[in-house]
C-alpha cells in the first residue's frame, strides 16, 4: 500500500514537474540591494580602529528554478556518522567536513581519484619563479567561468552571485593565517607562505608589534588581476600545487562571511562555488547537497542529489544498507568475514593511505638502544598481524611513506622484513639473550576493544619471534585525548610509555607530509623524543629542493637511514590500512585517497536503485 501511494505521488510530481518546467520563465539576471555588515580596520588619528558599518550593496543575481523535484533526482545516500563539524574551509579539520567542503568549494588544484596526480581545478595553469633572495613565487592562472552560487531552501531557487576571482583566494589565505580563524592546518600554510606565520602569531600588545594592516598586507598572497594569484613562498617548493588545492586556502566569499559571521555556512546563508550547493542542513538530522546548475567544471557522474545521513552506530548503518537505505556503509567487525563470504558482490575494498606503526620511546631503556629497536622491527611479523588483527585487510609496510605519495620508494624495497633469527641475535647483542633481563614494557594504546586486540596481537607476535614472555608487555589503555596528552612534550621522560601504537594519514601527497611532519626531530611533535640526526638534516634540505629526481632519491635515502638494516628506527612501520565496506551494486566510483570524495564523478544506476528500494 505504501509503495502504491509512493508511486502515485511520484507520478503526480513527475507530471507536475513537467508542467512546471514547461511554464518556467527563462533565467534572467536581476539586481537586488542587500544590506551588508562590513568590518574594517582603519587608521584614525594615529590609532588603529576596528569599525563595523552597514552598507547597501547592489548584487546581480541570476535566478533559475530548480530543475526537477527532489524526489526524482538521482540520489546518493551517504552516511557521515556524526554531524558535519563545519563547512568553513579555513577552519575544517575532520574528514567529514573536508569531504563536504570538497563538493561545495573548488580548490586551485585537485587530485585525480585514481592516480593521485595534481589536476587543474580553479586554476588552469601554474608556474614557479625562483627569486635571487632564495624566495619563490608561484603564479596560478584562474578560469573565469566559476561562480559563487547561492541556494534558497525556502524557494528552492539557485542564483549566481558573481564570478570567483583571485581576490577570493587572497582573502582565504589571509583568513587562514589570521589568529582568529587559523587552526591546525593553517600551520601548513604558515610553513611556506611568507608572512603567514607572523600573522598567526601576531600579538598587538608586543612592544615591536607592527600595525595590523601591515601584518595582513605582509601575508604572501596577492592578486595582480582578477584571474591571477601569486603566492610568495619562503623558499622554492616543488609540491606547492598539491598544497594549494587543500581546503585550508580554498576561496571563500568575504561579503557573506562579513554579513553572517560564523553562521555564514548555514543553509540559506552560504554561497558556494563547487559542483554542489547546500540544499538543506538540519544539524545531526539531515543534510542535502544538490547539483549546482551553474557549475561549468567537469561533472562526469550523474548524482544530482546527495542525502547525508547521520548514523553513528555501525550495526544500524549496516542494517540500513541491507534495507537499501544507504549506498555505501561500514560493516561491523563481527560480521565482516560472513559478509565477505556471503555477499562478495557487495564487498568493496579501499585504502585511505593511512599507515600504522609501533613507536618507541628513545630516552629510556630498552628502546634507547638502536639494536633493540631494530630487533623489534625485525621481529614484527606484519603479515601475521594483518591476518589476525585485521582479518587480512592491509598491506605490509617496511618503510613509512606509502605508494601514491611523491617521493615514496617502490613499496617495501626499503626497510627490514620479518626475520626472527636476526631479531634474536640483535636482542642478544643488546644484552638480552632470549629476552632474559628484558624489562617490562609499558605498551600504550587507546581505549577501544579493537585497540586492545591489536596490542595483544603485537605482544603475542613479539613473544613468538623474540622469545619474550607475553607478560613482558603491560598493555595500558587510555581514552584518546588522555593518550594524546600522555604522548605530548609536557610529559616527563620517566612517565612516558616505552612503546605505543599509532597511525598517520596524509594531508597532501608528498613524502614531506610523512617524514618531516611526523618523524623530523624538530618539525614534528617528536613523540619518541629522538635526537636529531643526519636524516633530519636531509629531510630539511629536501623540503625546499626543486629538482624532482633529487627529492625522490633523497627521500629513499631517508627511508633507508630510518628503516633499513642498521637504521635508526624511530618506530617500526607495520601496515597500510585497507578496509572492506559494503557497496550497493548500482553505485560505481573511484574512491578518492586524498582530500575527500568527488560525488560529481560517481555514477548510480538509478533504475536499479529505485527497483531495489521498492521491493
Amino acid at each position, binding site marked *: 500500500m505504501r509503495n502504491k501511494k509512493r508511486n502515485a505521488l511520484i507520478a503526480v510530481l513527475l507530471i507536475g514537474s513537467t508542467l512546471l518546467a514547461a511554464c518556467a520563465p527563462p533565467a534572467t539576471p536581476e539586481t537586488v540591494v542587500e544590506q551588508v555588515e562590513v568590518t574594517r580596520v582603519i587608521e584614525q588619528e594615529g590609532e588603529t580602529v576596528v569599525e563595523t558599518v552597514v552598507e547597501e550593496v547592489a548584487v546581480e543575481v541570476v535566478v533559475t528554478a530548480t530543475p526537477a523535484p527532489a524526489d526524482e533526482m538521482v540520489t546518493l545516500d551517504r552516511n557521515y556518522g*556524526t*554531524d558535519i*563539524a*563545519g*563547512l*568553513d574551509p579555513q*577552519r575544517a*579539520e575532520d574528514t567529514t567536513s573536508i569531504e563536504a567542503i570538497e563538493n561545495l568549494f573548488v580548490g586551485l588544484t585537485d587530485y585525480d581519484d585514481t592516480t593521485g596526480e595534481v589536476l587543474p581545478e580553479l586554476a588552469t595553469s601554474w608556474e614557479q619563479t625562483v627569486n635571487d633572495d632564495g624566495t619563490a613565487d608561484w603564479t596560478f592562472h584562474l578560469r573565469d567561468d566559476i561562480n559563487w552560487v547561492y541556494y534558497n531552501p525556502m524557494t528552492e531557487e539557485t542564483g549566481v552571485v558573481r564570478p570567483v576571482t583571485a581576490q577570493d583566494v587572497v582573502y582565504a589565505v589571509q583568513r587562514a593565517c589570521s*589568529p*582568529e580563524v*587559523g*587552526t*591546525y592546518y*593553517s*600551520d601548513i600554510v*604558515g610553513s611556506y607562505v611568507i608572512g603567514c*606565520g607572523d600573522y*598567526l*602569531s601576531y600579538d598587538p600588545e608586543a612592544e615591536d608589534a607592527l600595525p595590523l594592516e601591515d601584518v595582513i598586507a605582509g601575508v604572501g598572497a596577492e592578486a595582480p588581476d582578477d584571474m591571477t594569484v601569486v603566492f610568495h613562498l619562503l623558499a622554492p617548493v616543488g609540491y606547492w600545487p598539491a598544497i594549494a588545492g587543500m581546503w585550508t586556502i580554498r576561496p571563500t566569499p568575504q561579503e557573506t562571511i562579513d554579513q553572517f559571521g*560564523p*553562521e*555564514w*555556512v*548555514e543553509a540559506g546563508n552560504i554561497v558556494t562555488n563547487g559542483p554542489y550547493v547546500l540544499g538543506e542542513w*538540519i*544539524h*545531526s*538530522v539531515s543534510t542535502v547537497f544538490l547539483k549546482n546548475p551553474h557549475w561549468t567544471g567537469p561533472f562526469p557522474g550523474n548524482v544530482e542529489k546527495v542525502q547525508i*545521513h*547521520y*548514523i*553513528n*552506530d555501525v*550495526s*544500524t548503518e549496516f*542494517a*540500513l544498507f*541491507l*534495507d537499501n*537505505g544507504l549506498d555505501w556503509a561500514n560493516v561491523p567487525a563481527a560480521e565482516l568475514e560472513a559478509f565477505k563470504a556471503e555477499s562478495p558482490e557487495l564487498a568493496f575494498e579501499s585504502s585511505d593511505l593511512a599507515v600504522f606503526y609501533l613507536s618507541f620511546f628513545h630516552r629510556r631503556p630498552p628502546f634507547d638502544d638502536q639494536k633493540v629497536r631494530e630487533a623489534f622491527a625485525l621481529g614484527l611479523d606484519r603479515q601475521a598481524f594483518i591476518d589476525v588483527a585485521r582479518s587480512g585487510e592491509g598491506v605490509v609496510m617496511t618503510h613509512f611513506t606509502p605508494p601514491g605519495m611523491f617521493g615514496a620508494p617502490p613499496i617495501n624495497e626499503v626497510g627490514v622484513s620479518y626475520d626472527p633469527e636476526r631479531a634474536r641475535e640483535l636482542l642478544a647483542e643488546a644484552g638480552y639473550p632470549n629476552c632474559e633481563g628484558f624489562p617490562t614494557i609499558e605498551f600504550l594504546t587507546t581505549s577501544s576493544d579493537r585497540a586492545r586486540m591489536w596490542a595483544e596481537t603485537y605482544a603475542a607476535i613479539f613473544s613468538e619471534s623474540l622469545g619474550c614472555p607475553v607478560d613482558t608487555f603491560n598493555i595500558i589503555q587510555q*581514552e*584518546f*585525548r*588522555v*593518550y*594524546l*596528552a*600522555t*604522548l*605530548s612534550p609536557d610529559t616527563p621522560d620517566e612517565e612516558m610509555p616505552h612503546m605505543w601504537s*599509532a597511525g*598517520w594519514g596524509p594531508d597532501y601527497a608528498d613524502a614531506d607530509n610523512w617524514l618531516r*611532519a*611526523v618523524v623530523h626531530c624538530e*618539525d*614534528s*611533535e*617528536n*613523540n619518541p623524543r629522538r635526537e636529531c640526526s643526519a636524516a633530519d638534516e636531509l629531510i630539511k634540505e629536501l623540503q625546499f629542493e626543486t629538482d624532482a629526481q633529487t627529492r625522490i632519491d633523497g627521500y629513499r635515502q631517508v627511508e633507508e637511514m630510518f628503516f633499513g638494516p642498521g637504521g635508526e628506527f624511530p618506530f617500526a612501520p607495520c601496515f597500510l590500512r585497507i578496509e572492506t565496506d559494503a557497496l550497493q551494486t548500482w553505485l560505481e566510483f573511484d574512491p578518492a585517497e586524498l582530500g575527500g570524495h568527488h560525488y560529481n564523478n560517481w555514477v548510480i544506476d538509478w533504475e536499479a536503485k529505485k527497483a531495489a528500494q521498492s521491493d
Partner: protein
Amino acid sequence: MVRYIVRRILWFIPVVLAITFATFALVRAIPGGPFDVTGERAVPDYIIGNLEEIYHLNEPVWKQFGFYVWDALHLDFGPSFTYQSQTVNDLIAQGLPISFQLGIMALALGLVVGVPAGVIAALKHNTLSDYIATFIAVFGVSVPNIVLGPLLILVFGVWLNWLPVAEWGAVRPEHFFIYPWLPIPSLQLLEHALLPVLTLGSGLSAQIARLTRASLLQVIRQDYIRTARAKGLMERIVVIRHALKNSLIPVVTVLGPLFAGVVTGTFVVEQIFAIPGMGRHFVASIGQRDYPLITGATLVYAVFLVISNLLVDITYVWLDPRISYE
C-alpha cells in the same frame, strides 16, 4: 505548601550552581584538551594559544567559571568547540525536543504497561498471571537496550521490512530547524518511533511493574485495607482508591529521576536508532573535550532533575494525605 515550593525553588540556585561548578572543574581536570587533535605533527604553541584566547581558556579557571555563570544567567551557554557554527544553545534547542518526544512516549508506555502489570501481579499473587507478569518484568529489566534495539531492527526493519531501520520521523520544523517538544502524531512519526519507544519503554515498564507489584503487595496486607474490605467497600474501590494510591509512593519516587533521565536524552537508544537527540552530547562531548557542551548538557539534566524531584515531593501530598510540608 506554597512556602515549601518557594523554598525548594530557592534551593535550586545553590544546587544547580554546585552541579555546574563540579562539572566545570571535573572536565578541566581530565587530561587532554579540546585542541589536542594530533599526536604527531607539531602544532605551534601560538595556534593553540590563539584558540585558547578565542574561548577564554587562557584565563584562570575561577575567572572562566565567573564568565560561564554570568553568561548562563543570560541563558548563553557558550560556543561549541566541536560544531563550529553552532552554540551550545543551538545544540540543546535542536536535540532536547527530540529527546523529550522520545522520552515522553517511552515513559507513557512504561506507565501504561508497568502499572497495570504490577497491579495484576500483586492482586493475583502466586498465580499464573503473577508468574507471567513477573517473568516479563524480569525479562524487560534483564535484556539491555543495546541488545533489544538491534534485535528489533533486525526483525522488523531488515527481515520483515515493516518499519524503518533508523532515524527520527517527526514532521520537520519549518523555521529555525527546531522540533516541537511534544510529538505531533503522524504515520511517519509512529513508524519511526515504534521500535525506539518499545526498546526504551520495555525497560521502564518492567522497572515500574516490579516496583508497583512489590509496593502493592506490602500495602494490600495493611490493616486499613482489611478495614476497608470489612466495611463492605467494593474491591475496585479498595484497590484503586486505598491500596494503589498509597503503593504508588515508591513508584513516583523513582519516576522523578527516571523522567529527568529519559527526556534529556538516552545515549544507547538514540545511538542505536540514529535519533538526533541530546543523548550523544553527554558522551561524545567528553571525548572531544567540548567543555561548554558537557557543562551545558549536564546543566540541562540537573534542572530537569531538580524540577522533577520537586514535582515528586508535591505528588506525595496528594498520594498520602498524612504527608505535609507545613
